[in-house]
């Protein structure tokens, strides 16, 4: 009887967990489901299933252009932000210099500033230089948004390194640079990988800052979805959104294969 009671208690305790999880997944599930609808409507449940909206995405020059812009942007932003994030994370996570804590706060500061403000500030700055709508503007915006998150995971990784290892390398005659490259950097590998995947996922979905500086030519997939949703809801948006979702899921799955994400965040 005690067993039955504890079992029912456990089931009861799981109810809030299941409800919250359902709340988190539900809208995303609905997007995926409606992308396979065979009608140009968002009736639920859909009357029939088809892949026609995916076909339309790949026949539409604008969506194709946006897919290519987003893909190129990720390929440029991720290596750059990994370098910046690794250096910054090492500095604030394992560095020993006056002002390290203040610097750590400054590195995370872009998170505390509303995205709408970051976008406006970048827009104003880049207007003066005539850079709005150029690839430079988009890359800068994405670097700024991804940087704090990448620094954060890299810093956690760097702080976990035993400083004696570095001192051992130095006392064995390695130069500071050599010690950094052959001891510290390999030990920071999980943090660096996490920074890369996190940067990729955030860059793929970034919209709040991008819409300010994207102009007419640098329309990424999320920016185009942003404009399209405001005009009219159509199932091609659901298909594109599902593709975007699939790309993020792929990145996360890869990440989980390489390291235990939940320990890092």
């Amino acid at each position, binding site marked *: 009887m005690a067993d039955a009671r504890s079992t029912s208690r456990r089931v009861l305790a799981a109810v809030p967990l299941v409800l919250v999880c359902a709340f988190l997944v539900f809208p995303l599930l609905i997007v995926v489901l409606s992308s396979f609808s065979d009608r140009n409507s968002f009736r639920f449940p859909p009357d029939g299933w088809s892949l026609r909206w995916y076909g339309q995405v790949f026949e539409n020059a604008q969506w194709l252009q946006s897919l290519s812009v987003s893909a190129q942007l990720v390929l440029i932003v991720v290596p750059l932000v990994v370098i910046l994030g690794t250096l910054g994370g090492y500095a604030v996570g394992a560095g020993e210099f006056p002002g390290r804590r203040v610097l750590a706060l400054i590195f995370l500061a872009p*998170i505390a500033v509303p995205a709408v403000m970051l976008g406006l500030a970048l827009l104003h700055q880049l207007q003066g230089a005539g850079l709005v709508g150029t690839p430079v503007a988009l890359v800068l915006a994405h670097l700024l948004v991804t940087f704090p998150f990448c620094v954060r995971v890299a810093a956690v990784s760097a702080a976990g390194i035993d400083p004696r290892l570095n001192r051992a390398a130095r006392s064995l005659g390695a130069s500071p640079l050599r010690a950094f490259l052959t001891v510290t950097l390999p030990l920071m590998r999980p943090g660096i990988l996490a920074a890369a995947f996190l940067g990729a996922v955030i860059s*793929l979905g970034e919209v709040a800052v991008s819409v300010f500086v994207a102009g007419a030519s640098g329309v990424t997939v999320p920016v185009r979805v942003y404009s399209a949703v405001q005009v009219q809801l159509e199932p091609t948006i659901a298909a594109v959104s599902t593709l975007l979702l699939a790309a993020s899921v792929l990145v996360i799955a890869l990440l989980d294969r390489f390291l235990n994400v939940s320990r890092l965040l």
Partner: protein
Amino acid sequence: MTHQGARPVPAVEPGPPARRGLRNRAAAFRHPGALAAVVPSVFLVGAFVVPLAGLLVLSLRPTDALNNPLPGVGLDQYREVFTTSYLWGSVVESLGLAVRVSLTCAVLAYPVAWFLARSPGRTSRTIVFTIALSPLLTSEVVRSFGWRIVMSGEGPVNSTLQALGLIDESLPLLRSPWTVFLAVVHVLLPFAIITLTASLTAIDGSLLRASASLGASRIRTFLRVVLPLSAPGLVAGTVLVFSLTMGIYVTPLLVGGANQQLAGLRIQNEAMVSFDQPRAAALSFVLLVVTLLACAAITALGRVWERGNRG
């Protein structure tokens, strides 16, 4: 990704700090960490500090009839922000939304964070973890689009209610402020879950067993042991969710439309629709200061609470 400080770094420098002279101080700046900080610092100055400073200068500029900034410095824009009801009112409205959203997120985060911190099963943890993070790792536009479908006239909510015979005609859910509220909670809940999980993981399991063996009920154990010990994560998560709600604009815009009294939306509207950049700049600085003050207040309240728990 959490807003808690990095792990404490063990002291490396040999010798007591008292014996460090000026020369050692100079040498400290030559630590490879200081060198590594140079490039990211330069980037952050160029992409963050300088643009924000430029925005501050812009917010002090008077404007002509076409909203173009004129030379000169003055507080006209700020006076305008504080005296125009649809500008200052939007900041107040955002404050209200931020309070409701951060409280809701704090409550909803507990069951998930508790499971993530305490569950022994690796597979079930990975599944829940992926679900918990899925909104965070999906673009804001995709999530907002999802809510648009969910709440639309023929969407799942309306068709379920009709199928159950509770309503005859579909409800205009998209125009309800509750829809925007739900969508914003959905966007920000993962941040609360992550920070809270970090705190709950750190709780020593033997404390819970001790509490139980001394006869405390589960609810009592939660209120007297778990809740106080999770205070740092709760406060950090609340601050994060609060400040992110204050500036949010993409989700409310896409879910509820442009006609809402929210500061983020007003800034976006002033800058991209009315093309009044100085006014948008002034409003965004007012929003930033109000947000920072509110976050400082939350942190202070959290400190008082933690001290009360210890005493």
